[in-house]
């Protein structure tokens, strides 16, 4: 594998994305708003008291961190992989002496940098207005690192294998919309998991979607006890391994089936 070529590609993509930052700032703005809506809903519901053990300030902390975590784990590239396959553009990638996944990863890294350039200052500003309460400890901070790394890996590879179904079906990107909906409902966006009705809570704990977004936030804000954290990590790791395995399976099968049309 040619890692140096991959690194050059990453640098290149990053520099080109920075040039178009206005567009990406707009995307980041759009992702932020729905989460702010539910922040206001639940703060209003909590009022001066608590709701499911969460005060207004804690809810604010949860949602502000979720805004950042959501953007860090959101894999925008998955939306374009299908187009590249349909239009035959991956032919060129297949000829290059490095794994085509570098194209996705370079865009991922470029994206995260540009999105954070916008979102970190804005969330900081919001934090000044709505005054969240976040109790940080170094243990939580330490556990947050593997939690968010796995969350990114899981969300990326899960979306990537879905996107690769474009080798067989032209409109496989609808499955990505379905994934986004599930993350909204069960990934802690609509409500922190502890506020969901019982049935949805169980689904959230079992299915992979909570582990793509809410789980790192819960770890960082100290909402979980030791047992819950451990079980969470085991399930998250399990789903991540499944996602990578599915990606490899779909990729090897799909690439064998792939043929480009025209020139």
């Amino acid at each position, binding site marked *: 594998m040619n890692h140096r070529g991959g690194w050059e590609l990453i640098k290149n993509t990053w520099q080109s994305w920075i040039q178009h930052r*206005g*567009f990406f700032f*707009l995307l980041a*703005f*759009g992702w932020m*708003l*729905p989460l702010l*809506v539910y922040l*206001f*809903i639940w703060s*209003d*519901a909590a009022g001066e008291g608590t*709701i*499911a053990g969460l005060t207004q300030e804690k809810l604010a902390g949860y949602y502000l961190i979720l805004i950042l975590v959501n953007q860090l784990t959101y894999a925008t590239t998955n939306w374009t992989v299908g187009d590249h396959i349909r239009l035959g553009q991956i032919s060129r990638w297949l000829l290059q002496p490095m794994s085509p996944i570098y194209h996705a990863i370079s865009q991922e890294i470029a994206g995260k940098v540009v999105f954070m350039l916008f979102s970190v200052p804005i969330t900081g500003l919001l934090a000044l207005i*709505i005054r969240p309460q976040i109790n940080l400890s170094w243990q939580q901070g330490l556990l947050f690192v593997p939690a968010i790394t796995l969350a990114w890996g899981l969300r990326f590879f899960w979306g990537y294998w879905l996107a690769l179904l474009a080798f067989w079906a*032209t*409109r496989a990107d*609808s499955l990505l*919309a*379905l994934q986004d*909906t599930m993350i*909204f*409902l069960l990934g802690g966006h*609509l*409500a922190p998991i502890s*506020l*969901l*009705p019982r049935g*949805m809570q169980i689904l959230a704990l079992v299915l992979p979607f909570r582990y793509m977004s809410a789980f790192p936030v819960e770890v960082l804000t100290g909402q979980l006890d030791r047992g819950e954290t451990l079980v969470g990590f085991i399930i998250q790791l399990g789903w991540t391994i499944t996602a990578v395995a599915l990606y490899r399976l779909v990729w090897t099968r799909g690439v064998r089936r792939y043929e480009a049309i025209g020139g």
Partner: protein
Amino acid sequence: MHHLKIIGAFLKISSQAELAYRVNFWIRLLHSLLNLVTGVLSLVVIFNQVEVIRGWDMPGALAILGVYLLLGALRSLFIGPSLESVAGMDGEIWTGTYDFTLLRPLDQQFLISFRHWRIFAFVDFTMALGVLIYAQILLDTQLSLAMVLSFTLMLLAAVTLLYAVLLAFSALVFWNPGFLFTWVINDLFQLARYPVGLYPGWLRLMLTWIIPVGLMTTIPAQALVGTLTPWMLVLTLAFTIGTFLLATWLFRQGLKKYASASS
């Protein structure tokens, strides 16, 4: 009459183009259903925890959701596609193909507002009507003729407002062709899912009088629930007319700035 005939022709051309892609129909249906299910399920989750949000109970909030979906359907029926083709991503003002549109022997504002249709939005429209009827059944109030009239009137005002705001933001593209101003409105429109009273003071004022997306859903829903004061009705009408005139003026000013895009 002449203008209605032209709209008929635009509608026919657009639907012929759209009906050529049959698989797309099922994909669009999936997306519409996802949109509906998320909307309703969100309310279920919220009202599972609280009785009212800012004076709105479940049926009232459902009425707001109905108006929100209805406006969204009308936007994607023709307002959105028409204005996006001029001011959206790779829009005519950016690419310079607006030259050809300018040459058409027809009022510019009329032409760019009614040119493209997405007839599939009728499905969304029907779903939204279903939500509104269901909300009305839950509300269990005696519908008077006056209420139906004021609801219809306020709905018309809301559509006009939405159109005017989108037109004004499209016009801004004449001054700054690289920026997707209409996307900002699409993003902010998400805040209209819930009663505008939910948001903190400064944001509420902005969403009512500056970018009036909050007004668009809350006022018609108030008419349906029966809490709309005659004074507010008149004020909304006057505000709508004012915004429409302002947007038209802004578009005319922008048109003068247009200088094609040849290099």
